[in-house]
């Protein structure tokens, strides 16, 4: 039996019927890891013999992105600078998962500090796309998406700052949800860009995403930016019914650079939803062309500050200089950070530092915050007219490993459809909507109003049932 190929809700049903044990499930996931991990390399760290509670509510094997703290387990953001770092505390989402009996398989590989869209910048080496090992899985939560796609985990947690859950989910043919900013606690998520980061589920289908969000969502007194709103039972939103829903298609998302196969696949999906009773209209999000610039200012500025603490003083990597260039202390900082960070991390730290530095703050950072206001307003306006917005998740299917590593800007532009949801804080989900001629998955993105994850589940579920 291969329970590792099943969804969590199927597994839970079988466990309830006593046809399956939690141990069996973990054993099959473990066996799969043995079999395919050497090719896929979805994990940064695989945990030893995790605890399995047979009577737990949700004893589902889950991979955790390497930037979410688990007490006593190596947590490195796939960076050399956090070598050996074992947090002395659990992230809030980890506490919640522990309470429901989830089984942690390991820390999933990622772009170093979530800086990337391909999982190639990991200190541990790239993750490969289970659909085609020559391709990237997307990123930065590429390890999480690949683990689920390769059946090396039933569920995974990712984090999404500019599309880092949705884009790899799209490229790996799984479901990935970025909840509304403030819906899931960030406590214990090693920050990339604090005002944009959200933890979210990566699963095989919509139902599993709802189940996992049920566990991790909710107010946390340790996170000032988490919202004290009741958490609905998201599985109740899983209705095969979109009748009367108005869905917007932003015209700015279907212009140059989009792979025609992606476009076709998304419009096929739209046709299915139309058949199910949804109505579609073209909308405009006029500031879309500024999203990438805005994002790369805001995100890197926050990152430059968030990553300053990795300086070789308290924990992680420390490099003692051989000879003194400036002072022993400054040399230690500068050489530790030179060796500890990869090229993309340095690039972003530098860009963010520059955007905040004296004389440039107004032109870059402040400007970015102002354009962010305009982008958010675009969505506020749009949601006065429509219940949801549908777009592609990524302009292309998975690209080849190495194809964009030397071209940071083109890598940044691959986030073009996902970034705006982070800038405006709204929830967005990517669901598989087809395959390219090369047999690579294509993802459909649905966006909704803040705290209306239920709308995403409803539309996603309807599409899943009727495709």
């Amino acid at each position: 039996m291969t329970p590792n190929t099943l969804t969590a809700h199927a597994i839970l049903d079988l466990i309830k019927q006593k046809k399956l044990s939690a141990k069996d499930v973990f054993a099959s996931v473990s066996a799969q890891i043995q079999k395919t991990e050497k090719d896929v390399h979805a994990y940064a760290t695989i945990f030893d013999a995790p605890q399995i509670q047979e009577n737990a509510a949700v004893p589902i094997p889950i991979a955790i992105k390497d930037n979410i703290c688990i007490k006593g387990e190596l947590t490195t953001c796939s960076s050399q600078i956090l070598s050996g770092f074992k947090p002395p505390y659990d992230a809030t989402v980890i506490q919640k998962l522990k309470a429901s009996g989830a089984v942690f398989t390991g820390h999933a590989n990622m772009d170093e500090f979530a800086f990337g869209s391909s999982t190639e910048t990991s200190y541990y080496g790239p993750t490969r796309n289970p659909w085609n090992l020559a391709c990237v899985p997307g990123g930065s939560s590429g390890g999480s998406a690949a683990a689920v796609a390769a059946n090396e985990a039933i569920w995974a947690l990712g984090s999404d700052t500019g599309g880092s859950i949705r884009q790899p989910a799209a490229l790996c043919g799984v479901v990935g949800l970025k909840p509304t900013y403030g819906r899931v606690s960030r406590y214990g998520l090693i920050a990339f860009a604090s005002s944009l980061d959200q933890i979210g589920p990566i699963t095989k289908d919509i139902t599993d995403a709802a189940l996992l969000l049920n566990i991790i969502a909710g107010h946390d007194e340790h996170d000032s930016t988490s919202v004290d709103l009741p958490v609905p039972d998201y599985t109740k939103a899983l209705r095969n019914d979109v009748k009367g829903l108005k869905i917007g298609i932003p015209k700015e998302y279907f212009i140059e650079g989009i792979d025609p196969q992606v476009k076709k696949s998304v419009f096929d999906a739209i046709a299915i939803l139309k058949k199910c009773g949804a109505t579609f209209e073209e909308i405009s999000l006029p500031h879309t062309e500024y999203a990438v610039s805005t994002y790369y200012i805001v995100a890197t500025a926050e990152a430059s500050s968030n990553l300053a603490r990795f300086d070789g003083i308290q924990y992680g990597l420390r490099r003692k200089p051989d000879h003194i260039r400036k002072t022993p202390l400054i040399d230690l900082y500068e050489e530790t950070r030179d060796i500890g960070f990869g090229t993309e991390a340095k690039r972003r730290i530098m860009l963010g530092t520059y955007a905040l530095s004296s004389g440039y703050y107004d032109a870059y950072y402040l400007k970015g915050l102002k354009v962010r206001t305009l982008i958010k307003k675009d969505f506020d306006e749009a949601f006065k007219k429509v219940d949801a917005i549908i777009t592609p998740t990524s302009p292309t299917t998975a690209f080849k490993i190495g194809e964009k590593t030397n071209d940071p800007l083109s890598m940044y532009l691959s986030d073009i459809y996902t970034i705006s949801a982070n800038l405006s804080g709204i929830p967005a989900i990517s669901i598989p909507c087809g395959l390219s001629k090369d047999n690579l998955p294509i993802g459909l993105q649905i966006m909704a109003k803040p705290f209306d994850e239920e709308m995403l589940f409803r539309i996603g579920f309807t599409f899943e049932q009727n495709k």
Partner: protein
Amino acid sequence: MNQQTQQFETVIGLEVHLQLDTKTKIFCGCANAFGHEPNTLTCPVCLGLPGSLPVFNKQVLEYGIKIGLALNCTVSSFIKFDRKNYYYPDLPKAYQISQYDMPVARNGFIMAPSQNGESKKIRIHRAHLEEDAGKLIHDDAANCSLVDYNRTGTPLMEIVSEPDMHSPQDAYEYLQMLKLTLQYLNVSDCDMEKGSLRCDANISIRPVGQTNLGTKTEIKNMNSFKAVKEALSYEIGRQESVVRSGGVIVQETRLWDENKQMTFSMRSKEEAHDYRYFPEPDLVPFTVSEQKIEEIKTALPELPLQKQARIKERYRLNDYDSFILVQDPLVAGFFEECVTLYPDAKKICNWITGPVLQELNAKKVPITELKLSPKNLTTLIQKVEEGVVSNLVGKDILKNILETGQDAGDIIQSQGLAQVSDDGALLKIVDELIKENEKVVGQIKAGEEKAIGFLVGQGMKKMQGKANPKKITELLKRRILDV
């Protein structure tokens, strides 16, 4: 004008960092306490561990507003926190959560009384909240530095004055008044030795008559008000001699060296300060309602100058006495309690500002920790005033009370300290005195009445201090002068 004869004016502004006495730190639930074993008051938040997030302590904002109001500031209705980015081993996140452009309070002032009795108005530019850093200890033997993160996250209020002071004495008086005001608010123990109150100074000189400010230096590492005065005096001299010898003042940070009594340039730290302030994304903004401000304002305690004015007026004390009494709110409170028990405020004041304060200064404890109650002190004063014991014996009894806490009446009784006022017993002594001091008696008879004091002294000696000197005087006069 000749540089040698040029007269200079000094301009001083002070930055005071005050640790707030909340139960917990500013952004986490670790105890805010001093003197614990190193690294025993930390958690993911104050250690700045990756993934940790700050949550603002409500009490800190209340204290901040309280201080702002006491310093006559405008309290902002909207405040936010910003990150100040710089690297130092005592700063675990490599940024300090502080307030950049929206501090809790701004545009205030305090009135600082000066030696000549006049008050000087020193304006407060702003006061903002921030987190303290950890503590660094330098281990020369092991050629390393050691970090204790217990202090990290201690709530701080930074109070920045305008450059309104023109002498070290001005600065000293400002600090005295500021500290006193803060002590009244009960928001900090204001102990410079423990580092709960720290002061940096910005100082510049300019030719008298010039309105533009000269280039300033920033003086750090002054560990007492006395040190502030000394460091500023030294720095004025240094700056003047630089300018007089044709040099220019370099804008820099200088450290006060207590032992050498000099300031030294801190060159190694002279890097461009580009703190890259930006709004702290991990904290949300805070609003302060008019109602909240009003509530805190109403609950403000009586402040030192108000208290002094009231005490002076109500108990008819002079400037000096009332000033001394309000230097410690607990002492002032003790005084006022005594006055409810015994009517002579001036007498009470003398006892308190004299022997009682002496004891406080010697023991360095608050008055509430003495074994002396207002009841006991006023009982003692009453006994002295009624002539039951002499002033001198009274002082001894006070010492006894301070040691044992025994009731004044009990001490007098058990040790038989009551003065003899009985004419019969005293007459015997007076006759002896007259017999033994014929010469003095002669002088008295000749009109030198002052000489009587000598005889009274001798008489007190014979009675081992237990006689009532008034009574002896009276009897001596009656016997010698027949009055």
